[in-house]
């Protein structure tokens, strides 16, 4: 299938964007519509240790315990709509027929019952695992040891055939290079890994997902750069952390958005996956619905934009929580309560036509909390989007433009505005700008340069990308 690159913005201005509305709403599942005037809570969960012992214990954990708890609590609190997300664990992709199928089918059956009984709008996203190993080979036929590429595709099919409403994956192409680069603050290497190699890898996997979705009349949602930008964000951490500078994380986020966009260019409809914070940028470009997470995903991680990131979301997620008891019920019930009420607040704001105001309150709260928050504020996210579509047809140049735009936005605001940076962050920012400025203006030369520079990176094999 052809890839239709984005070369213009779907929104005419940043202000047109707001939570709960997308240019292209998407309907699926049991009465679910996303992006058409309502923000939907999306609850994600992880099984307890040991639940993976055998297929039946895993099914029981996911269906009888987790799914049932979620649906009961949604009814208890009166939420009109809920989306579940199941992030597949290794066992499910390793043996899809044994481990994955009963879970997918069981969840859907139970959801159907609740939908029939209560009329609640329900849907489930299955985010299949990407177990591929760069050293064994990322493409079908290459991995003689585990056949992971084959298994990955199979598990997408199993999900689509047995009850998934929405298909997602956090594809990991290029991460072997990005992992290497992140620990060395090498922005060029990171751009090569994620912006370039990652985008190539997505152009291989996503058309397949879109086809599988079409065949099964379900939706291909979208990707996220968990493997790259979230790792940066996670390591950059908060004000007590010193692993990597937050300016580096911010710039990688912008670059990542050029990669995440590829899923939609391959025909996926959205909503994309919550755990990439690049949602505001890709939504600005493509007008498809986006899942986001922040202050109510503290169970999974603490970020520096807990409110801001809600600004233009269509689904509001908890990222993930391990299933276990709390005073207030099970953990999934407690976090569903939090995200469900936040969605209710946003939906009330929409009803009262105060949604843009609430959006601005969210945004203002964290605008200056970190450079990453700053570039994701919807006005800046829009600018990064513009940089991407300007070079929309060139995965290298658009990634570079995204990174450079983010870096310049931060630099400018640090100079004359309210965004404060530590000395080390400033140093890093200067180095990033210098490094990016030194890059060639042409894809071929960039590729050549990087293939040489990173040929010894452990695990990196150009054949994975047909290079």
């Amino acid at each position: 299938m052809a890839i239709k690159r984005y070369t213009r913005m779907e929104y005419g201005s940043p202000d047109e964007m707001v939570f709960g509305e997308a240019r292209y709403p998407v309907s699926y599942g049991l009465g679910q519509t996303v992006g058409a005037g309502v923000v939907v809570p999306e609850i994600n969960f992880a099984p307890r240790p040991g639940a993976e012992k055998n297929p039946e214990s895993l099914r029981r954990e996911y269906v009888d315990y987790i799914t049932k708890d979620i649906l009961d609590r949604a009814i208890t609190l009166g939420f009109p709509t809920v989306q579940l997300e199941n992030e597949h664990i290794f066992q499910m992709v390793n043996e899809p027929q044994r481990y994955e199928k009963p879970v997918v089918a069981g969840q859907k059956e139970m959801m159907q019952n609740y939908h029939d009984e209560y009329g609640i709008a329900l849907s489930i996203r299955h985010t299949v695992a990407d177990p591929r190993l760069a050293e064994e080979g990322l493409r079908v036929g290459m991995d003689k040891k585990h056949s992971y590429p084959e298994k990955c595709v199979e598990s997408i099919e199993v999900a689509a055939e047995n009850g998934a409403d929405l298909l997602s994956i956090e594809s990991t192409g290029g991460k072997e290079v990005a992992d290497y680069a992140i620990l060395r603050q090498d922005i060029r290497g990171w751009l090569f890994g994620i912006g370039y190699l990652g985008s190539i890898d997505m152009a291989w996997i996503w058309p397949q997902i879109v086809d599988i979705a079409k065949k099964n009349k379900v939706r291909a949602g979208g990707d996220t750069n968990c493997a790259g930008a979230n790792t940066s964000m996670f390591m950059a951490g908060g004000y007590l952390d010193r692993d990597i500078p937050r300016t580096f994380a911010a710039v990688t986020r912008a670059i990542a958005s050029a990669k995440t966009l590829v899923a939609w260019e391959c025909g996926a409809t959205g909503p994309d996956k919550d755990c990439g914070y690049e949602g505001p940028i890709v939504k600005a470009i493509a007008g498809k619905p986006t899942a986001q997470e922040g202050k109510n995903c503290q169970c999974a991680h603490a970020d520096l934009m807990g409110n801001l990131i809600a600004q233009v979301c269509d689904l509001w997620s908890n990222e993930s929580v391990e299933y276990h008891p709390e005073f207030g019920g099970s953990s999934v019930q407690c976090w569903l309560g939090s995200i469900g009420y936040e969605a209710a607040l946003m939906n009330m704001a929409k009803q009262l036509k105060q949604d843009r105001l609430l959006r601005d309150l969210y945004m203002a709260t964290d605008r200056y909390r970190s450079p990453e928050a700053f570039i994701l504020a919807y006005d800046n996210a829009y600018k990064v989007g513009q940089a991407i579509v300007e070079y929309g047809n060139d995965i290298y140049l658009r990634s570079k433009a995204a990174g450079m735009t983010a870096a310049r936005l931060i630099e400018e605001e640090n100079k004359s505005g309210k965004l404060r940076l530590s000395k080390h962050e400033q140093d890093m920012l200067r180095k990033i700008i210098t490094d990016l400025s030194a890059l060639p203006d042409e894809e071929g030369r960039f590729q050549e340069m990087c293939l040489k520079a990173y040929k010894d990176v452990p695990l990196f094999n150009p054949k994975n990308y047909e290079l």
Partner: protein
Amino acid sequence: MLDLKSVNFDRVLRRYDIQMESKESPEELAARMVPKDPYLRKVVEDVVFMRSKNITENVASALKNYTPEEVIEHGLIKGMDVVGELYGRGIYYLPHVMVAAEVMDKGVKLCESQMKGARETRGKVVMHVAEGDPHDIGKNIAAVLLKSNGYTVVDMGRDVSIQDVITTVENEKPAILTGTALMTTTMSAFPKISERLRERGINIPFICAGGAVNRAFVESYPIGVFAAKAIQGPALANKTMEGYDWRRLRENWDKLTAAKE
């Protein structure tokens, strides 16, 4: 204040409780479950409809045609069966159950006064709330449900020391012991009780419940059997009287409690 007139509340919240209001009335359901016999029927209805004023008279009439044991079994306890069913279906609320149980109690007292020996109950249950823990409402509810299902309850109350529990079990020789704990810092009494009872060769099921505890914890020490809801108490007790030991209760736990959640 903002004007809320324009709001479509359906997009913000859904009133599932209203939507699901049971179509069946208590009267309809009771009609299907009450015995044909006019005397017993009146007793059953008094319990189901909580007619505290009528119960004495109707039990007295029934006693003219049936033995006290029969009136208890097929009238009073039957009435509570109906009440339990109504509660389980979400037609009755908890206070209905409590008040009905009091009506039943009144009737039972009258029957007992006409019996030769002491009434044989289904079994004896010793109940307590852990030391240092004041949260006793759950235990109180469970006690009423057990009583109204024909059990003798020795209620030790709340904030009960381990030693007192052991002594009472030794003296009362119950078929079942129960413990309630709502705090992470009081529940550790349960494994200790389990140990002390086992030292004394006592292996009766020890039903443990309350907000703080969960199944994994309760099953981490011998004789512990978890209960999530008060209404599961009678189900677990009945099986105990049928001869299930604590191991078998655990093995069949999902099945035994499924309907009662």
